[in-house]
């Protein structure tokens, strides 16, 4: 039943292949990867995701012809009593958009990874894991595709947890590294568990849905939603929001994402920036009718997004790890998207999702290239065999962290290409016209201006901080003079890495064209799925303000970090910076409020309660019997006369009973 001819356009019949090409790649690598070596492995993986991309493009073209949603039935999955959930593929503009992003950006990152991992596995001293990496990667594409092509919430959930698993595996890819060796593994576990908390929400949401609407299919549920009791919808949507906060790293569940940077850079780019983390946004967009029906839920979503955007931006200010900065920036940008979908500006949300995918992937990848350069430089330093006196404070080379921006500086001379693409990405992120970020963010601000001015203010502030930490990062990494020998010896990365960067840079630059105020291409495209909302018109003053804020931020960054310094300038702000730097002690708070209590409880239950109390009670009966046995045994004292006495006791009591009865 793989190819069905019941469908408007034969291209749609191909849709299962967006899942199965990655699967094929996965299996091939699993079976033959080890024998056939890195080139084969990399190629297979790239081809797999590339093929998926091609299919997505074909689907897009098909939709361009007849843009109405299509469901391609695949197989019956679960059927019990009145519950049924099938694995069908949903082809509509929304899902196809996601497919394009996932497979497109995914392919580029695959290409990049073929080279990056080549270096990484050697740097970490286990070349054997090259294959494993691409197996995981293909698995991720597969799961993500299941997520976006799902036609009901259950299959979506399958993909949803699937990508969670991949994120777990890839964060823990170097499971023996990280702080005292276990750090990465712990980060991975943290990511999975926190996501599970979100999934809990999604699960219960699904249960409620089924018992309220009798189905989990998108069409059925969303059709029934507007008529349903607002209470039920509120429950469902809020529970979904919990899921969103988990997957898209919003307050309160964002804590896993920064730690997730333990994964290799391509992972951070693909999973933790471009695709997986946006699943939450996709979920809300997908469930638009439900959210539209309950303003309260929408407001909740919006506020969560807005606050996250600001909150994360502030933290990003305080980070020194190049990837951590990007991680918090991702959280913040996701906040923008979530806020957008919360305001009902689904198009804007999706738009920002796309552009963000471009420039954030770009940023991560180029950060990766920077790191590669640094590592190379460090190794070169090893080759030289002696450290420089003035860098004694760095300790030995082993201690040097190739990701710490304080160890960098002046890299624009060493790695020009990387610098240029990074610049493009940063400006797009900061929202400088005419780069993609500007337009998408602008649409969100417009929507905010329509719905709620406080939110608008918050978002503008967040935008300002964004621009500021972008500036800070640029200065620290690429300008000024090299602060370590590694930085001095850093070299530009090879073509296999830079080419995808350049492509992404172009996309990040012109991505705005997708939904230019004039054309509203994306708007019209998505309308077929999300229904018509009024197109976000272009408000010049607002755009001006936004641009101004961005430039101001960048300028400040340049101002503060333009000349060399010993101590971090922001530390003058005192506790504020400490708060930024320590991420507002959120992790500590969770540890105190959740982790430690749970450990305490389970320790008590496992120890005193289970083995101590319950088991004692259970065995108590036995002990009691043994005691009784001892006591009653005393009567059996060996004296004939006692035995006779007992007989008489029996006789007398029987006679008494008979007499007194």
């Amino acid at each position: 039943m793989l190819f069905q001819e019941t469908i408007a356009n034969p291209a749609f019949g191909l849709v299962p292949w967006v899942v199965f090409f990655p699967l094929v790649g996965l299996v091939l690598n699993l079976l033959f990867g080890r024998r056939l070596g890195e080139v084969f492995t990399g190629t297979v993986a790239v081809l797999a995701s590339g093929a998926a991309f091609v299919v997505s493009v074909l689907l897009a073209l098909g939709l361009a012809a007849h843009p109405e949603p299509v469901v391609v039935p695949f197989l019956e999955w679960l059927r019990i009593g009145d519950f049924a959930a099938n694995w069908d593929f949903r082809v509509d503009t929304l899902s196809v958009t996601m497919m394009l992003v996932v497979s497109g950006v995914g392919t580029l990152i695959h290409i990049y990874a073929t080279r990056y991992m080549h270096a990484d596995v050697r740097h970490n001293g286990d070349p054997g894991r090259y294959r494993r990496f691409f197996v995981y990667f293909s698995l991720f594409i597969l799961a993500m595709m299941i997520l976006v092509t799902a036609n009901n919430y259950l299959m979506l959930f399958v993909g949803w947890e699937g990508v969670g698993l991949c994120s777990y595996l890839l964060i823990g890819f170097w499971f023996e590294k990280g702080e005292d060796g276990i750090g990465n593994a712990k980060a991975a576990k943290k990511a999975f568990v926190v996501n599970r908390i979100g999934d809990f929400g999604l699960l219960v949401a699904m249960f409620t849905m089924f018992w309220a609407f009798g189905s989990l299919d998108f069409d059925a549920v969303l059709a029934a939603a507007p008529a349903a009791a607002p209470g039920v919808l509120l429950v469902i949507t809020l529970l979904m929001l919990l899921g969103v906060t988990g997957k898209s790293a919003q307050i309160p569940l964002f804590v896993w994402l920064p730690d997730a940077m333990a994964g290799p850079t391509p992972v951070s780019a693909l999973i933790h920036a471009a695709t997986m983390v946006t699943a939450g946004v996709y979920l809300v967009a997908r469930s638009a009718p439900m959210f539209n029906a309950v303003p309260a839920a929408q407001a909740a979503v919006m506020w969560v997004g807005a606050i996250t955007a600001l909150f994360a931006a502030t933290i990003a200010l305080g980070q020194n790890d190049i990837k951590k900065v990007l991680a918090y920036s991702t959280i913040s940008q996701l906040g923008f998207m979530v806020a957008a979908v919360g305001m009902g500006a689904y198009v804007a949300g999706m738009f920002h999702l796309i552009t963000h995918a471009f420039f954030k992937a770009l940023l991560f990848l180029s950060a990766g290239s920077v790191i590669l350069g640094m590592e190379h430089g460090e190794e070169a330093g090893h080759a030289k065999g002696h450290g420089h006196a003035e860098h004694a404070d760095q300790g030995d080379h082993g201690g040097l962290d190739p990701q710490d921006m304080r160890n960098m500086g002046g890299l624009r001379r060493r790695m020009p290409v990387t610098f240029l693409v990074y610049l493009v990405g940063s400006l797009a992120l900061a929202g400088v016209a005419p780069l993609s970020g500007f337009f998408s963010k602008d649409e969100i601000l417009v929507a905010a201006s329509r719905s709620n001015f406080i939110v608008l203010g918050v978002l503008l502030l967040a935008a300002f901080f964004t621009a500021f930490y972008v500036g800070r990062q640029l200065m620290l990494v690429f300008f000024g003079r090299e602060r370590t020998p590694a930085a001095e010896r850093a070299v530009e990365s090879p073509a296999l890495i830079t080419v995808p960067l350049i492509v992404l840079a172009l996309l990040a630059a012109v991505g705005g064209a997708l939904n230019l105020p004039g054309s509203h291409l994306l708007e019209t495209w998505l309308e077929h799925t999300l229904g018509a909302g009024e197109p976000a018109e272009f408000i010049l003053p607002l755009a001006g303000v936004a641009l101004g804020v961005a430039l101001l931020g960048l300028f400040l960054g340049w101002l503060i970090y333009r000349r060399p310094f010993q101590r971090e300038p922001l530390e003058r702000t005192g506790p504020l910076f400490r708060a930024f730097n320590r991420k507002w002690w959120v992790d500590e708070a969770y540890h105190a409020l959740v982790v430690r209590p749970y450990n305490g409880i389970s320790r008590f239950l496992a120890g005193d309660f289970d083995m101590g109390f319950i088991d004692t009670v259970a065995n108590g009966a036995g002990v009691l019997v043994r005691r009784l046995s001892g006591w009653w045994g005393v009567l059996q004292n060996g004296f004939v006369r006692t035995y006779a006495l007992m007989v008489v006791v029996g006789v007398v009591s029987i006679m008494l009973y008979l007499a007194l009865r």
Partner: protein
Amino acid sequence: MGNTLLFFTFAVVVVGTALGMVLSRNSIYSALFLVLNFATVALLYVQLGAPFIAMAQVTVYAGAIMVLFLFVIMLLGAEQLTEQEPLPGQRIAALALGGVFITAATVSIVLRAGPLAPLPAPAAGFASPLDVGMTLFTRYTLPFEATSAILLVAMVGAIVLTRVDRPRTPGAGQKE
């Protein structure tokens, strides 16, 4: 009337001798008390019109059995056991139980035993030795045979228990 008087004299003797038997330190005395007791009971049997049984009582019990007792006591050198009671509370418990028993028995046996009227005179020839003999060998054949078996067993037992074994052939035990 005189009859009842007779009963009471017998009864006093019976109870007295019984108590004497239980209470006297020396087992010889106990035995002698018991002889007297049995003899008096025999008299009661006569009074109750069971001459044959009475005779048997005197010969078998007062005669044979008690002589056997005396022999054994002599043989074992009639030991007198020390006064102290090793079992704490045995005496109190025993006496208390005895009291309860006798009251309960009085309530549910003695007073319900039968009509309070004096026993009627026996029919002529009731329980005459002839009568006894006839019943014994007609209706009671089986019990009679059974008793013979019991006596045989007793004999064998007495022998088995008291015979001094001739020295067993060495190693007869472990023929493994």
